[in-house]
């Protein structure tokens, strides 16, 4: 037990819900105590699309329960499928209170009338104390493993899958857009964005891509490794951060997609000339912003940030400490 001022990461269930919320056709069932479902409120306050989140609470009831009230996990799973005809996959997330209760989880999909049977992803590996990033990474791997079709032919032209951040990632949609724009410049199309903006059908067709570009390694690591091992889809893990990092990532994509390296290099140089090596929004802050400040970089990123970018810590400030937490 430790006394802390806060935590930087939520619990595993939060990571699974963040992941599922971004994928169309996936519905999450949160097994938790009544009142523990706070994702809808968070989503409403942080995102501006006005959508309701595809999350249903299956309350872990203590004591007497009305027979027709929600609370029976199997019935609740079946109810979700019945009430949401468009659902193609149901993913089960359990809060830490539910995990500590020691409740058994179902192993088969709930029976449905007709021939429709959405896949059930139970996240059986979830355990108390697990962080949201690790859980989101493993949940995405489970979803990809469940849906990615074997034996699909590669697309006739070079395409890649973009593995980026889930919902609530700061500027997540803009990151995907920028990466897609740069890839289009070198002649590569995006087969699927995962997880934000993905669909279940898109997950099925992931093996069509010529490669996977990992923008956000924390969540896409396991899924892209699975695609590499089981479907032979290579991956680019160079982070698109900083001018050199972005250029290196584009060159790696070009190699994977068998593009002309000279053409790619010319495109990268042309892009750098247009943008003065940095995206326009980097110019919003005056150059003195970090002068004289002591900067600590916290994060869970397993990769070093852009190696040649004049980082604030290096250029104007003394960095007392930087690294992983």
């Amino acid at each position, binding site marked *: 037990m430790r*006394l*802390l001022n806060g935590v930087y990461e939520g619990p595993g269930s*939060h990571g699974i819900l963040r992941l599922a919320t971004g994928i169309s056709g996936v519905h999450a069932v949160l097994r938790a105590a009544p009142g523990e479902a*706070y994702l809808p409120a968070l989503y409403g306050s942080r995102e501006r699309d006005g959508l309701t989140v595809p999350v249903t*609470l299956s309350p872990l009831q203590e004591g007497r329960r009305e027979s027709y009230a*929600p609370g029976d996990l199997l019935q609740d799973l079946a109810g979700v499928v019945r009430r949401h005809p468009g659902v193609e996959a149901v993913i089960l997330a359990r809060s830490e209170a539910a995990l*500590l209760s020691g409740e058994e989880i179902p192993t088969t999909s709930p029976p449905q009338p007709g021939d429709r049977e959405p896949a059930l992803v139970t996240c059986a590996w979830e355990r108390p*104390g697990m962080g949201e990033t690790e859980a989101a990474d493993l949940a995405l791997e489970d979803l990809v493993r469940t849906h990615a079709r074997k034996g699909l032919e590669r697309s006739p032209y070079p395409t890649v899958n973009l593995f980026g951040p889930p919902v609530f990632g700061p500027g997540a949609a803009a990151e995907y857009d920028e990466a897609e724009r740069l890839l289009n410049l070198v002649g590569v199309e995006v087969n699927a964005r995962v997880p934000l903006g993905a669909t279940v059908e898109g997950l099925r067709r992931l093996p069509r891509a010529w490669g996977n570009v990992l923008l956000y390694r924390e969540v896409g690591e396991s899924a892209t490794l699975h695609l590499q091992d089981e479907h032979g889809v290579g991956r680019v893990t160079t982070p698109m951060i900083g001018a050199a990092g972005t250029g290196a990532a584009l060159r790696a994509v070009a190699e994977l997609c068998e593009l002309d390296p000279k053409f790619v290099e010319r495109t990268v140089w042309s892009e750098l000339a247009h943008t003065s090596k940095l995206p326009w929004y980097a110019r919003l802050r005056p150059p003195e912003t970090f002068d004289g400040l002591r900067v600590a970089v916290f994060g869970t990123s397993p990769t070093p940030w852009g190696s040649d970018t004049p980082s604030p810590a290096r250029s104007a400030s003394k960095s007392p400490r930087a690294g992983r937490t």
Partner: protein
Amino acid sequence: MTILNESGIPDVLHPLHAVTGLAGRFPGTLVIVVGVRSEAHVVRSFPGGGPGGRISFAVLDPQDPPGQGHLANLVVEAAGRRADTVLLVAGRTAAALGVDVDFEARLAARKSGLSVAAVDAGAPYANPGVLSTDLEDRVLAALVGLCPKRRTSELVEAASQAKRGGLFGLGGRGRERPAEQGRPVVLLGGALSPGSAAGLVAELARTGVQAAGVVPSTGDDDLPPVGEGTVVGVMDPNLGAAAGAARERGARVVRTLMPIGIDGTARFLQDVAEDAGARTSEVMRARSVWEELGALRNRVRGKRIFFAGDTGYELPLARFLADAGAVVLEVGAPRLDRRFLAEELQALGSGVDVVVSPDWRGQMQRIEDSHPDVVVASAGLHAPLVARGHLCRSPQDFVRAGLHGYEGARRILELLARTFDRAEALDALSL
């Protein structure tokens, strides 16, 4: 009035979201949230408004639960000389990991000499369901436990003083009938709107009843004694546990309407005064306030209002707004304690539907079908409903505005009038 039980999943904000607001409300108090990562994450995800108080997290390791006394040592170390009171708020997982937070609080209090109160945020209520204000209720119940007890000798003295002419001595300023009050009055509630508690104290003083104090205390006041012979006026409809704690101490909890709205305030003042041994009539005062607020009532008259249900304040709010001429389409009640709220339910107009355990998807459909003028929407429904073109207010807006007493009634009507005015101004832009 019809009560339906939908047995659905209501949209209710996690009760722990209120930790930051409560910590800010008690500046000299260190709040320690005991649980695993989930609890700390919820508290940090909802920073709340106003000045932040002092919050720490005792994060338990599920693989290595702490031994007995470990938490108490941590509390003593954390409190040091920097806090007068420590509030140990235990999440659901603390009990699951074998932490007896009551024991740890007692041990920490003995070791440090500080007041340490334990709050079990996950303890179930007798009635099923959760309200977003449950933590406030639990904290107030813990504070009642910290109030000094009244002794029998004080009761004898109080009775003789009352016979002589007043519990608090003679000659108090502005008291109309101090000689008639026989029992001390303590107000319970208003934790998140402290100004409105002070307003009610003043209203009580006008009727000749001097309040011995408020729980939670306002400003630098100490907690008032609560025990046998104390008359407790409960200000908020969500305080079932706190009222129960006062009752367990032998206090007399007044069964009346909540002091929300004009008629509610009038009944509250009358009934509290009567239980305290003073007689007063609020009929004239209530009538004059209704007249004063005529212009504001005209702004809400005929407006159709839907309460999704979240805080538990919806019932008295709906009662007042229906009396003021609004049409209340539905009152969602994620949990309904019929015995505690019997007076409120009786006073609710005949055309109001109360839906217990409402299903949030069903509510959205009913809102789409009926298209109310304003929806008092819970946090999860707020953004989707606004995106669909509905006019929404958060129930927390009403709570923070201070809805108790006659002035509270004005603030409720003003808040709604401002809502309609702004919507009309935006409509006029034809965006």
